[in-house]
């Protein structure tokens, strides 16, 4: 029986591993091809290790005369960083208000926010365009950063983890004469660091990967983001597969590396806050 179970387990592992390879094969192909000269990318059979190794594709990305790839890269880094930092403070500040302060109408207001989660984002595209224009933030990265701070999802998640912090801790601080602002900043915020880290990671990938925002609201080439840039870049180079793969690689590497190092936060963040049956 034990031997049979073991065989079974090995079979399942082999099956899952095969499936896993299908899942990550595009990434393997991409990284391998980005170091090949374009003529070798489509060569059959596929070689994992480039026969003729080259860095030219990456050099070409940042030195081509047509597109300002490094500018897009810097834009995306600045936008993503601002997005994460502003969101962390903004959302945790709000979540504190909704969890640790007993003010009149709190739960009613929170329910309104929750029901707004059902509104699909597609419906906001056009009105937001008009609003950005009137706020004079159209065609700037603030059109991407500010709306992303209104993330009900994370207000909800952080509120949950703030509620899980025992009331006695903040009560004790209150008796010692702490104001809400100090309790938030010196007591609650440090205690909720794991949830805040999960939020920061997800915000990072969403901001970094956002395509629709920059596509619709940013028109100046030099202010554009990587997601839009990589599409422009790759459609301009139909046959130059090596460069296309290099472009995809530099866009994907930051999120993939972040994921590899922090995958516990990503996956357990989903699993623990996820629905339990």
């Amino acid at each position, binding site marked *: 029986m034990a031997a049979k179970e073991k065989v079974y387990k090995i079979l*399942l592992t082999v099956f*899952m*591993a095969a499936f*896993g390879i299908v899942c*990550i094969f*595009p990434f393997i192909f991409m990284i391998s*091809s980005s170091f090949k000269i374009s003529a070798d990318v489509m*060569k059959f*059979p596929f070689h994992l290790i480039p026969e003729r190794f080259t860095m030219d594709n990456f050099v070409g990305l940042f030195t081509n005369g047509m597109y300002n790839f490094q500018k897009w890269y810097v834009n995306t880094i600045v936008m993503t960083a601002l997005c994460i930092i502003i969101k962390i403070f*903004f959302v945790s*500040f*709000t979540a504190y*208000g909704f969890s640790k302060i*007993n*003010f*009149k109408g*709190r739960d009613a*207001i929170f329910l309104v926010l929750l029901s*707004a*989660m*059902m509104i*699909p984002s597609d*419906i*906001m*595209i*056009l*009105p*937001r365009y008009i*609003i950005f224009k009137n706020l004079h933030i159209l065609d700037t990265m603030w059109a991407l950063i*500010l*709306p992303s*701070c*209104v993330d*009900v*999802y994370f207000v*909800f998640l952080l509120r*949950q983890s703030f*509620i899980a912090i025992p009331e006695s801790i903040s009560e004790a601080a209150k008796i010692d004469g702490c*104001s809400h602002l100090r309790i*938030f900043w010196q007591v609650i915020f440090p205690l909720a660091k794991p949830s805040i880290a999960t939020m920061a990671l997800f915000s990072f990938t969403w901001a970094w*990967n956002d395509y*629709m925002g920059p596509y619709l609201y940013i028109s100046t080439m030099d202010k554009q983001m990587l*997601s*839009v840039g*990589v*599409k422009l870049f*790759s459609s301009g180079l139909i046959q130059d597969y090596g460069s296309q793969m290099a*472009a*995809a690689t530099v*866009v*994907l590497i930051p999120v*993939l590396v972040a*994921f590899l190092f922090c995958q516990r936060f*990503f*996956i357990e963040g*989903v*699993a623990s806050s*996820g*629905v339990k*049956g």
Partner: protein
Amino acid sequence: MPTALLFVRKIHEKLFLQAGNGGVMQQNKVKIKTSHAQKKENRAGYFFIAPYLTFFTVFTGIPFLMAIGMSFLNIKYITKLDNLKFVGLKNFTKIFSNKEILDSLWRTFGYALVYVPLIMILGFALAVILNKGVYAKNALRATVFMPYVSNIVAVAVIFKVLLGSNSPIIQQLQSWGFEPPLLLQDLKLALPTTAVIAVWKGLGLNMVVYLGALQGVPAELLEAAQIDGATKWERIRHVVFPMVSPTTFFLLISSIIGSLQNFTIIQALTEGGPGQATTVMSVNIVRTAFMKYDTSLASAMALVMFVIVMIITLIQWYGQKKWVNY
């Protein structure tokens, strides 16, 4: 954006936190006296939520109301807001008499019919396998989850090369004697292909959420079923499946909503082509608004999609009593 997930949270909150645990929300509710202390507390509370509420009103509340208003007006160019006229339901009658728009609506449903069943079944199956016990569980879980964090536009660049003519995969298949079609350039196959790539990207999330639920199924229940002589399949069908049905319900709703918001993946992979083969509603809305400059019609189309999502969700909400066990 994870609007789909957000929605799941909302329901989750309603069911489990209010009804289940006796309500965390109620727990903190102290009888509100308009004492001096309470007034101070009120002021502090509004101070903490005021910045957020301002942003929420500007970037979500007002846009939502504007979207509804705009669908009943005759706005053409989005930047020109003079000469507005109320046109009643004209934009909506236009939608339902325009073949091009209706076709894109059907394509949206076609996409969902591939995406939703596939991601639900695969997500559940993989979670069952992982939960059953495999070697290197965490590493395998991470490989399936990895596409979820990736940039879809960069991924589309890879897939376009991999599925294009002359790619190593195509050549490999040809050397085995197959004649593989060019999936993204085929009029019939392009739409299901984009849906399958979307499944590839989103699968990890469904799997991990299911895995969390499966770990909550008590081992004694499964053992009891085994002693009673239930086969593996019967145990999954009659024990595991009912136990995780709330999760199934939430994932189903979030997958359906997610399947309707597919602008980025389709724009990145095919831009609606070849021909109109992958022009679904989300692509058509953006095109109507930003290329055909018919702002009001685009708003009306988005509103129709919103109403469809609401109806589907409501049907499921009332239908759940038949198969969801809490």
